[in-house]
């Protein structure tokens, strides 16, 4: 009983960690040339030196740009509580200049407890922003502008970017503009004069390398020794975890996971699923948990569909594949039946069903969306004459047949031939 409770507590702890980006990216703050430290240096030096600065955070989605930015901002607010105010804009919501300025004015009002009027015009808002920046500059307060989805701001005439960056060219304002974008060429999208005013500090966020990946895994999954859990349980958990991490099969598993998507986000989703599979009886993670989590992340809906098909339906799919290989551009049910007959003739199979039964199977395949009609004309024609096409690729078919519970050898032979 006690063990189960401990296991449940450990589970809660792990799940909390996985959902908390602060925890996941915190170890990066320790190394001096991580992006976290560089960003912190840029922002804190602008705050302490009372100068203007701009930076761009680039990298694929899910690599922790926003998470690291949040961490840095939190640190800034803690270290300099009264001298930093943050304005956040998002390119998907505020890409229109009017909208963006309104939002800036509203956030500035909220920060400084002023009344915001919805009726204020574009001009009023611009004037307000410029005068607020001046006031903040005089009071030695730094305003940090965070522009999410920066590339959306770079569409159109880029007025907002120009006015923000231009305001930073004067001595009276103290602002830091941080753009976050997943487009690598985000600064090429800027107009010449906006780009000239932008200081070219770019921080590149990349998905973690293999060593970093293992380090992150260890950091997240190792239970802390100073928690409320008993020592021996924690020691047992951690040692079994280390064993798993050193296992070759685990490394292969992680490779399969990261081969198509190696971002942090993806990894965290996988870990969450794996941790949820943990057996509360033993209270320890095992490699099977990770194996069980993999299919839920890398789903193959067509293969799952294929598992439910009957053997006749598999025959029909293979006939269609053979017709495709023979480079027949369009074929319909009748040609598939001909092919089926020819297979039966050449291989003397025992499964030879009548036309009606085959038609039923055909309709079932249509309903499953493993095949479909070529186009949506010809509603008047009966099913047998309308051209059809396969919606499942050769590889998926091949894999599905391999996984099929009792696939007849003849089908395997037929599909092997195509290879």
């Amino acid at each position, binding site marked *: 009983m006690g063990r189960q409770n401990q296991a449940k507590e450990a589970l809660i702890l792990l799940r909390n960690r996985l959902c908390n980006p602060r925890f996941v990216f915190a170890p990066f703050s320790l190394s*001096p040339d991580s992006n976290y430290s560089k960003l912190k*240096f840029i922002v804190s*030096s602008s705050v302490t*030196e009372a*100068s*203007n600065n701009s930076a761009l955070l*680039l*990298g*694929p*989605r899910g690599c922790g740009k926003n998470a690291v930015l949040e961490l840095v901002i939190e640190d800034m607010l803690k270290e300099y509580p009264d001298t930093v105010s943050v304005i956040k804009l998002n390119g998907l919501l505020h890409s229109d200049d009017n909208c963006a300025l309104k939002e800036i004015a509203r956030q500035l009002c909220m920060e400084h407890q002023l009344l915001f009027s919805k009726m204020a*015009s*574009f*001009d009023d808002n*611009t004037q307000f922003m410029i005068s607020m920046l001046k006031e903040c500059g005089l009071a030695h307060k730094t305003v940090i502008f965070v522009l999410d989805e920066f590339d959306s701001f770079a569409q159109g*005439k880029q*007025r907002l970017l*120009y*006015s923000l960056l*231009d305001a*930073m*060219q*004067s*001595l009276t304002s103290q602002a830091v503009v941080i753009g976050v974008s*997943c*487009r*690598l*060429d*985000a600064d090429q999208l800027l107009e*010449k*004069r906006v*780009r*000239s*005013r932008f*200081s*070219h*500090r*770019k921080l*590149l966020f*990349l*998905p973690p*390398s293999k060593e970093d990946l293992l380090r992150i895994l260890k950091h997240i999954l190792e239970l802390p020794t100073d928690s409320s859990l008993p020592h021996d349980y924690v020691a047992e958990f951690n040692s079994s975890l280390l064993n798993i991490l050193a296992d070759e099969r685990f490394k292969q598993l992680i490779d399969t996971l*990261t*081969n*198509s*998507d*190696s971002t942090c986000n993806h990894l965290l989703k996988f870990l969450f699923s794996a941790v949820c599979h943990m057996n509360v009886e033993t209270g320890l993670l095992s490699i099977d948990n990770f194996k069980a989590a993999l299919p839920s992340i*890398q789903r*193959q*809906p*067509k293969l799952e569909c294929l598992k439910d098909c009957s053997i006749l339906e598999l025959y029909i799919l293979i006939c269609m594949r053979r017709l495709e290989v023979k480079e027949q551009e369009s074929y319909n049910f009748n040609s598939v039946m001909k092919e089926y007959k020819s297979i039966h003739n050449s291989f003397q199979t025992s499964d030879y069903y009548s036309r009606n039964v085959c038609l039923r199977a055909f309709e079932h395949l249509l309903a499953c969306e493993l095949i479909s009609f070529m186009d949506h004309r010809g509603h008047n024609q009966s099913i047998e004459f309308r051209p059809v096409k396969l919606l499942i*690729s050769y*590889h*998926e078919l091949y894999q599905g047949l391999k996984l099929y519970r009792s696939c007849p050898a003849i089908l395997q032979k037929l599909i092997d031939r195509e290879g």
Partner: protein
Amino acid sequence: MPTIALNDSLPLAAGDELKCGTAVKPGRSAETCFTGDATPRKRKMRSDSAAEDNQITTTTPPPKPCTPTKWKSPRRCVDDSPISPPFFELSEICIDTEQLRAVKEALHVSSVPSMVVCREDEQKRVLEFCKQCIEQEKAGSLYVCGCPGTGKSLSIERVKESLLDWAKEVGYQPPDVLDVNCTSLTNAPEIFSKILGKNLPQKKTKSATSPLQHLQSLYSQNQQSTSMKMTLIIADELDYLITKDQAVLHDLFMLTTFPFSRCILIGIANAIDLADRFLPRLLSLNCKPVVLTFRAYTKDQIMVILRQRLTALPYNVFQPQALELCARKVAAASGDMRKVLCICRSAIEMLEAELMPSKYNLDLLSTDNGYSDDWTTPAIDPIKQEIDVVRIDHMAVALSKTYRSPIVETIQSLPQHQQIVLCSAVKLFRRGKKDTTVGELSKSYLDICKLTVIPPVGIMDLSSMCRVLGDQGLFKVGQAREDKLRRVTLKVDESDIAFALQNSGLRELE
């Protein structure tokens, strides 16, 4: 760092420095200097002085505590030293964070020097033009063009001030000045109401006539205008006024052609041929604006400007070669002064970052050895005085950070299947086509997977990978009804991809 050692080694170090141009750090002088001449001195330093950073390298405790008394602040010792060579700026030896801060401030884009150098000719021309207009009480238009960061707005600001001063001196009525940045206008014709606002501040503009018509009528009548002051209109970022029918820009310049017009119009923009492209009718009326081009800065001009900013400070933070490298690189690329200042600041930051960990190390060691009081009484920590100048390597790193595109690094860090997708796109486009559909791409992808014996992913994963690559700006993916029919174009150069993937094993396919 004992002062005696400093005195001893300095002339040699200076000479060596001149020879090879690298900064000498007295803290590690013996090591970084040329061993041939330095080693005898090194031994002398060791025996004479208390440890300095020989303590860092060896763990022998310093021999006598008498040497700390010879410690003086390096600056002072430098002045005292009888052998200090005249050509070597010894004051640059000890830099601390305050000074670096001051330099960074001096190099910030927003700190404007009192005199704008390297633009004297252009400023003179504009000033002459304005003076002429005021003297003859005639209207005129001038168009200033040039690449971003060439000092246009800055120079015109100065000209404005000098013009007002001159007018007061000579006794002419100083003109009204309207400085408007056209990006702040909601719509283009608003500029006329702004000009009108300046001209007749009391009059309300709620009349039936538009501001433009008002202005036009104002400038066509004699009596009212002769009593009016001249108006100097400075329109920055003029190309924001370009509308579809180019009416606004045209009317603006036409204002200066009216018989009793009183405005001097100076327009600033980037396009060199704005006047020709958008104001063709003016040529026929023989009133094209005078065009003044601000050329991009050359390397020498950049050096002059940098020196002007830095001479205000009593110490040197940059190695001259580093400044020259920066000036050369930027002059070759764009001649943009803002970029130069930004890169210099970035180089200083790199220096700061380099110094910070070493400061920790040295502080720790000094307190460990128990010499804390004596050794740190001079305000500046003596151990820490390596010659902290920004060297060429700092500048080179700052330059590469600015000019490098992150594409190669990103491609190298992509997961394997996404790299294969990129390769398959390159292969497809080799045959001359420039865009393809996702379906075709998947066929090429499957071929490559077969060649490299890597199990391919399904079509759903493939199309989501295409979307991810499109998000990052490597592909351009269009919209279509069906997933398979979306058009895909490559936005990155093939050679970049080939370069990035050359070590990854996929290269052989190309």
